[in-house]
């Protein structure tokens, strides 16, 4: 199914951008998959997460309101949120 693999590809690219944004903010390299738990696996606190989001806003030229992070736990959640906001934008 071409449609679903396109979605997967887009998700893949977004996940990679999340990883790069995290590396910029944290100043260390990170290994992530969509299942990576941002707080637990990456030791990212709420402030660092907000800084990662700011970085992602610039990378995607997109507004990501902080209140939308309430449901974000994994890198996959964050990527999905970004992809959703990109469609809207």
């Amino acid at each position, binding site marked *: 199914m071409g449609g679903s693999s396109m979605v997967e590809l887009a998700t893949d690219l977004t996940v990679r951008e999340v990883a790069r944004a995290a590396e910029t903010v944290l100043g260390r390299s990170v290994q992530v998959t969509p299942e990576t738990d941002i707080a637990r696996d990456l030791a990212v606190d709420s402030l660092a997460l*907000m*800084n990662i989001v*700011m970085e992602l*806003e610039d990378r995607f030229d997109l*507004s990501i*309101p*902080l*209140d*939308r992070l309430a449901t974000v736990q994994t890198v996959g959640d964050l990527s999905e949120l970004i992809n959703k906001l990109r469609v809207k934008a």
Partner: protein
Amino acid sequence: MSLLDKHLGYRAPLDGIRAAGADPSAVRFDAVLSPTEGMLDGRKVILLGTNNYLGLTFDPACIEASADAVRQWGTGTTGSRFANGTFAGHTALETALAKFYGRKHAMVFTTGYQANLGGISGLVGRGDHLILDADSHASIYDAAKLSGAEVIRFRHNDPEDLAKRLRRMGDAAKGSLIVVEGIYSMIGDVAPLKEMVAIKKEAGAYLLVDEAHSMGVLGEKGRGLAEAAGVEDDVDFIVGTFSKSLGAVGGFLVSDEDNFDLLRIVSRPYMFTASLPPAVIASTLTALKRLEEDSSLRAQLAANADRLYEGLRDMGYAVGPHASPITAVVMPDQATAVMMWNALLANGVYLNLAIPPATPENKSLLRSSVSAAHTAEQIDAVLDIFERLGLEYGLLQRPRRASA
């Protein structure tokens, strides 16, 4: 398994700090002697982190007014203004604040924290947009959560970044609320308000300035950064606190907005908490009068701020971008910060240990704030101790005076 287990990540860092012999959360004063001196374990220490900018906590007129009020009105209001009524002092203070800022309306809250919580959450809600400086105080972040508004952060004190993010928001930028602080509480840096005002006007947004650390400190009349930057007409809302330059506790919101009175029945942090006790209102009212009438306090504060800032900078310490009553000395790492904080305390200087995550850029800071009440001798004593310890711990290269 306990409900507190989720906080266990903080156990090791806290124990580490305690093991180094310091626990800033457990400093216990036997007595406070003046705005600038306290007794710790039978020893006198210089207070250098109290935000007591004008030194009014022991002002005789403030103390008198407070004592009179407690005798006349009792120790507390025992409830909210809505439930238990407004006392004469509440209205007098609101009138005085509105007049001081040249605004139509003022509203007093029980703390500065609640002034942000109640002010901001009363102004924006679900569907509205709130634009925050990334280094905003916790009370502003908590207000954002309580409000339910869509929150966008911009890079600290960066007008271009603010403009970029507003542009990105498109139509939503119009009518959004931008929040900045006059003086930022950790480093003592000041918002580039003129530039931000220009951006806010272009976007059609509202601007709220939290003057917690700048009221009584900046501006010819002490009204804060908006006055100092000459942009008061373009600042829509001002929040402030009574807990710093006014030497008590409480907070306020002032504005010219129509329908301001509605905030009193929609702002939960205003409605559902007891109002300030008469003694606090009375000392605050008197302190505000002192602030307005005695500009020498501000001049003395500025001179003291320069003396401490320049002294530390010239010694070779890494300090903020400009002199301000708040001076933060950047330590190379947290362990050194804890060690220095302990050594300063052992030598009779009490200031704030500021460590991540409460600090910008995860820096470890020794945060100081001077008061108009500090004497030049006290500041010089602090500088001598900083120099001696800096050399001892290898933080400074050379004796300052030898090379001067």
